[in-house]
């Protein structure tokens, strides 16, 4: 299984410490030409760090990284890149003032200060590469005007422009639709067939299982399993790390809420336009006091727009009423002070402040004693935050940051808490902790929750009622139990 002879990428004994924390411990992996290796692990497992160590973005404390026989461990990343390693970052930051074509050309340029006039062949090569990855129709557009999938293609075009022997791809399919994922998979297979060694870094085995020849699973900095996708999925340890116990919470019938006549929140025929694009069309929803409502929809369906309208952040036509009173005239600040608090998708923590300071900030308006009690309660809800109290928020893992965001919102003692895609990019083990916290909120408090999700398996157990938002419109409303049968296609 682990032949190392002749591997294009051969990593051994790789170790990285951050202060006392061992992020990567004695990792070994190798990828041969024309093969794809999947490196998977939940958040905080160290898989991204391994990728950065290979690319030279971080310096390893020990171990070797051999590219076609040459040990490049500890080299600066531009030298490693020139040895034939390319990386496709998950988040792209293209040059916004340049066109797609110019962005690809950038990657074709040599690292020489004397290179003042672009080779005429550069243009043709850039065009060919951009066309190959499927950007042919948008060569002269600016990145800012393109959808997310095209930005990913720019990244991959830049990476292959340098013709790397070893290609590292971080979360290849994050944020892509099913069709886009398929196109992207085909492209990755083509690159493999060119004879490159490909390393896919992802959360789940499942998302990369169709592509990979082998998979290595990581947990807390160490390798816990290796084998084919099927073998790794069957692995005891992997299953334990990934699959928690199932959560059982029964939906409460709508008739059990007392404010049937004037629900706590009523959104009536909401219309929002972004320029010419209709972001929301005649959307009507209501949420009773104490009710947990999920709005399910894929990327771009309009969930965030709906929440932003409720929070008073975007102008709209139609009406939004809280306990019968229109919120139209209220400012965003007044709405938040009144107890409608939104946890935005972007998290927006103060990353340089500690966990505790972030929480204290959320509880500014509370009397000192009450703030203390509230924090104590939140630490019971999210025990990990108690351990991380003194750590800067920016150093937390994605899942921990999400918990802190929710905890900070709860410090404001909201009546209605709006969570916009809390599970975005989180590993199953974190989902389970979040799930437990939400279940506890539902059972022990009278808080009202509006949850926006595309992860149906997370959204359903926490909902008394579910709305499905599709292309700016509400297309389904009902109890979670009926969802699978009536609206589940395409989500499960």
């Amino acid at each position: 299984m682990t032949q190392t002879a002749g591997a294009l990428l051969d990593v051994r004994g790789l170790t990285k410490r951050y202060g006392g924390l061992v992020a990567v411990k004695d990792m070994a992996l190798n990828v041969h030409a024309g093969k794809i290796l999947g490196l998977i692990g939940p958040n905080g497992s160290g898989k991204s760090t391994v990728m950065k160590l290979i690319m030279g973005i971080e310096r390893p404390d020990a171990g070797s990284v051999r590219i076609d026989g040459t040990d490049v461990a500890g080299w600066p990343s531009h030298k490693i890149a020139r040895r034939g390693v390319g990386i496709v970052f998950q988040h792209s930051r293209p040059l916004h003032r340049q066109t797609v074509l110019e962005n690809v050309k950038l990657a074709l340029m040599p690292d020489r200060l004397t290179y003042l006039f672009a080779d005429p062949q550069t243009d043709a090569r850039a065009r060919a590469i951009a066309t190959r990855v499927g950007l042919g129709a948008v060569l002269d557009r600016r990145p800012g005007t393109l959808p997310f999938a095209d930005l990913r293609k720019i990244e991959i075009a830049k990476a292959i422009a340098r013709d790397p022997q070893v290609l590292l791809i971080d979360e290849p399919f994050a944020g892509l639709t099913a069709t886009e994922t398929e196109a992207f998979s085909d492209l990755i297979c083509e690159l493999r067939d060119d004879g490159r060694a490909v390393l896919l870094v992802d959360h789940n085995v499942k998302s990369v299982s169709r592509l990979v020849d082998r998979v290595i699973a990581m947990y807390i900095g160490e390798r816990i399993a290796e084998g084919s996708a099927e073998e790794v999925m069957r692995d005891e340890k992997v299953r334990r790390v990934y699959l928690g116990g199932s959560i059982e919470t029964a939906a409460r019938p709508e008739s059990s809420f007392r404010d049937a006549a004037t629900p706590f929140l009523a959104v009536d025929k909401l219309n929002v336009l972004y320029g010419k694009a209709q972001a929301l069309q005649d959307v009507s929803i209501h949420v009773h006091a104490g009710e947990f409502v999920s709005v399910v929809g894929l990327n771009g369906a309009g969930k965030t727009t709906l929440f932003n309208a409720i929070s008073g952040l975007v102008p709209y036509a139609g009406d939004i009423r809280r306990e019968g009173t229109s919120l139209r005239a209220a400012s965003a600040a007044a709405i938040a002070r009144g107890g409608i608090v939104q946890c935005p998708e972007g998290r927006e923590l103060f990353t340089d402040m500690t966990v505790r300071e972030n929480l204290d900030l959320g509880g500014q308006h509370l009397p000192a004693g009450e703030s203390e009690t509230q924090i104590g309660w939140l630490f019971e809800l999210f025990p990990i935050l108690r351990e991380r109290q003194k750590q800067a928020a920016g150093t937390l893992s994605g899942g921990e940051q999400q918990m802190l965001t929710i905890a900070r919102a709860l410090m404001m003692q909201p009546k209605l808490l709006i969570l916009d895609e809390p599970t975005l990019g989180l590993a199953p083990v974190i989902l389970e902790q979040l799930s437990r916290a939400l279940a506890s909120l539902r059972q022990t408090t009278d808080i009202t929750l509006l949850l926006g999700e595309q992860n149906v398996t997370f959204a359903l157990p926490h909902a008394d009622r579910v709305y499905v938002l599709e292309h700016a419109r509400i297309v389904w409303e009902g109890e979670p139990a009926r969802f699978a049968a009536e609206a589940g296609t395409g989500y499960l």
Partner: protein
Amino acid sequence: MRSLSTAHVLLISLGVVVLASFLPLGVSGYILGLLTVAYYFGVFAMAWDLLFGFAGEVNFGPTFLIGVGGYTAGILDSLYQPPIWLCLVAGAFAAVLGGVVLALPALRVRGPYFGLTTLVAVLMLQNFIVVAASLTGGEIGLTVPDVISISDRVNYEIALWFMAVSGAILFALSRSPVGLILQASGQDAVQAGALGFNVVKHKLAAFIISAFFSGLAGALLVFYLGTASVTTLVDITVGVQIIIAAVIGGRRTILGAVLGAIFLIAMSELLRPLGDLSNFIVFAMALVVVLAFPAGFFGLLTRTKESA
């Protein structure tokens, strides 16, 4: 701007410069003198834009480079009176050297610390000039024995064509592959590195080029004014004016910086009758421009062109 090729922009600019070279036929020596200073300021601002607009490094100390160049040339002249061109070369060279000494450690620190480092460098230079008064003339200023010319017209033409050549070089550089790599390095150094670009090397080169033009322009300005003083070359206020000129002219445009510099000098001249209030008004106007049109004059100009 995108619709115009580099060659087109240079050609149009050349036309404007040629027109400007006939100005001495029609305007007074006083106005020529103002424009001469404005042109040198234009070079300062363009050199600064290369660092900020392209390499993404906020240099709060453009006057450090200018001061090192100007004072080196001036002191050399006052001590040994070598040919003026030698003083100019020495000034430019000293600024480059000073730039490297400043940039090497400064480029290692990230974010606001780079700016802070450059700011402290200005304060140190300012203090050094005051302390080493026997060499530098201290707070009173250094009088240089030689000037390039006493003719307003000659000085005007030198400044104009120096600015034109500097502008052409800096602009062409910004549009070259190296300019593109610089922008990428400024925007996302990690990604630029992963694409195989030595980010530190490119940023250092930008710093050296910026220092060269700043130092040379500083030295030329000293030989035009006949004096070097802290208040005209080094003071933080001068640095802020350069930054404002570049920003209101249009970030990442290089040539916009010249418009900004001429605007600033023309405004403070027009408002001179108001006395101390004039500076306040100029800065307030600059603030309005920065807040209302962050793309600057040049950005405004090119936006209307694009929509047309």
